[in-house]
């Protein structure tokens, strides 16, 4: 969690450096340079890169052979403890409060917080602990579209979301934009959120037609004429990631998410023998996660 809060992931950093090179809006350009200095300052001083340290949460992925000592309840307790410890240690901002009573435990732990979500892989005796500290109350939206809305309807809602939350920089852009298409309403939001937070800059969906849309949508976002903080500029989208899930035949639910200038994510892989490896690519969307069949038969999938 310390790493996530302090060190900007390399893929995003390179994306932002590229944006800073191409930006010609005076104010936008100044902002991007200040951001690059900020990441350096955070690393040098070992302080959080942003004062809004987001709402820390966990994505846990288990290889099918992994067994947790003490069971999953022990794992959840450890993740909650780690969250409280990092809040005091880094320090992180104690953002989490009760929605009605505004009670703050000053440790980012409370009812339903931090969120812990799970995924599995067919092989391996490791556990990936992925922490994402997504900030921002803005830049995320959902809409039920219909098949008749088609790609031009998808484009429009995408633009609407960027315009609505890009003005005044409420989305803290340039951002990694995640788009969720399909699923039911809640899963549509989950897909979009995971598309923005669990995929790295430069990655592409395995479906070549979706990958093409990702390229096109990135370009469209950067043609708005809006840059950092909503100033005139040409860098709004560092990358655009799209994830899909099967949905009701009558609908085309869509969500848009912005993973901000502080795209904080970090991964620790814990092996069966106790070794720990750190990385910043969650590698969440494997062929298994995107599988379409009843049973998992990797050979047949590969042959198709």
């Amino acid at each position: 969690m310390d790493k996530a809060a302090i060190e900007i992931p390399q893929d995003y950093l390179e994306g932002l450096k590229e944006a800073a090179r191409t930006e010609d809006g005076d104010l936008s350009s100044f902002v991007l340079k200040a951001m690059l200095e900020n990441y350096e300052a955070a690393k040098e001083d070992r302080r959080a890169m942003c004062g809004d340290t987001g709402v820390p949460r966990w994505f846990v992925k288990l290889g099918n052979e992994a067994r947790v000592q003490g069971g999953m309840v022990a794992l959840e307790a450890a993740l909650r403890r780690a969250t409280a410890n990092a809040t005091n240690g880094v320090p992180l901002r104690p953002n989490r409060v009760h929605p009605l009573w505004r009670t703050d435990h000053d440790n980012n732990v409370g009812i339903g917080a931090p969120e812990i979500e799970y995924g599995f892989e067919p092989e391996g005796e490791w556990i990936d602990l992925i922490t994402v500290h997504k900030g921002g109350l803005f830049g995320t939206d959902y809409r039920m579209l219909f098949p008749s809305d088609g790609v031009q309807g998808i484009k429009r809602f995408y633009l609407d979301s960027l315009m609505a939350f890009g003005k005044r920089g409420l989305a803290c852009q340039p951002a990694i934009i995640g788009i969720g298409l399909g699923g039911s309403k809640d899963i549509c939001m989950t897909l979009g959120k995971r598309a923005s937070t669990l995929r790295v800059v430069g990655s592409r969906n395995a479906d070549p037609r979706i990958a093409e849309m990702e390229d096109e949508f990135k370009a469209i976002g950067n043609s708005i004429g809006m840059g950092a903080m909503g100033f005139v500029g040409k860098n709004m989208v560092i990358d655009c990631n799209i994830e899909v899930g099967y949905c009701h035949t009558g609908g085309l639910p869509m969500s848009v998410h912005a993973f901000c200038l502080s795209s904080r994510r970090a991964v620790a892989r814990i092996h069966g023998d106790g070794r720990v490896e750190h990385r910043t690519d969650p590698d969440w969307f494997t062929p298994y996660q995107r599988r379409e069949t009843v049973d998992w038969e990797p050979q047949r999938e590969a042959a198709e």
Partner: protein
Amino acid sequence: MSPREVRLSTTPSAQAIADLRLGDVVYLDGLMYTAREGVYMRALEDKANIPLELPSQSAANFHCSPAARINADGSFDMGAVTATASFRFAKWLPEWMAKTGARLIVGKGGMTSKDYRAYFVPNGAVYLSTVGYGTGALLGRGVERVEAVHWNEELGLAQAMWVIRCNRMGPFIVASDMNGDCLFERENAKIAENVARLYEGTRPATMKRYGESDDRTDEVI
């Protein structure tokens, strides 16, 4: 062209404020306090006594919750500081400014030109925006020390009133001026020229949202 840089006291003179231009980059020196909904509600609705001499000690109100902790020995550690979106506080700001003499409102995203004209200009105040958003580490470096924290028991660390001594703290961007003009609205107007072309060929959603507007110059704040 790079923006003009200005160093400004957190108890600025009327002249120093009048000299600021939209888009200037500002670095602050002096005492600044954080106050957002928790502090506003406590001071204005619950009528609690504000634990600072305002504006003589500070005329700079930061819409911020820092990433900070209070150590067991009572000392403070403040890591990163960044602003939170200010438009949500419009409800309390006129009364707050009248009561505290705040002349620098520092935050994220600014207010509307209507707000600036209605109560910023009459109070001799301007809006400074943080940069990024999220230059939390840079701003953290500008915190020379934490002087005090008030109301942390009542409001929690995030909503508490932190009093910080700034030493060339920045960068901030001047987002309103004594004409009541708004930097973000100026930029929005330029971007709006491109919007019709951008939307060409896209399809309005089959199902409308209740109360939905098709005016792309609208803002969510």
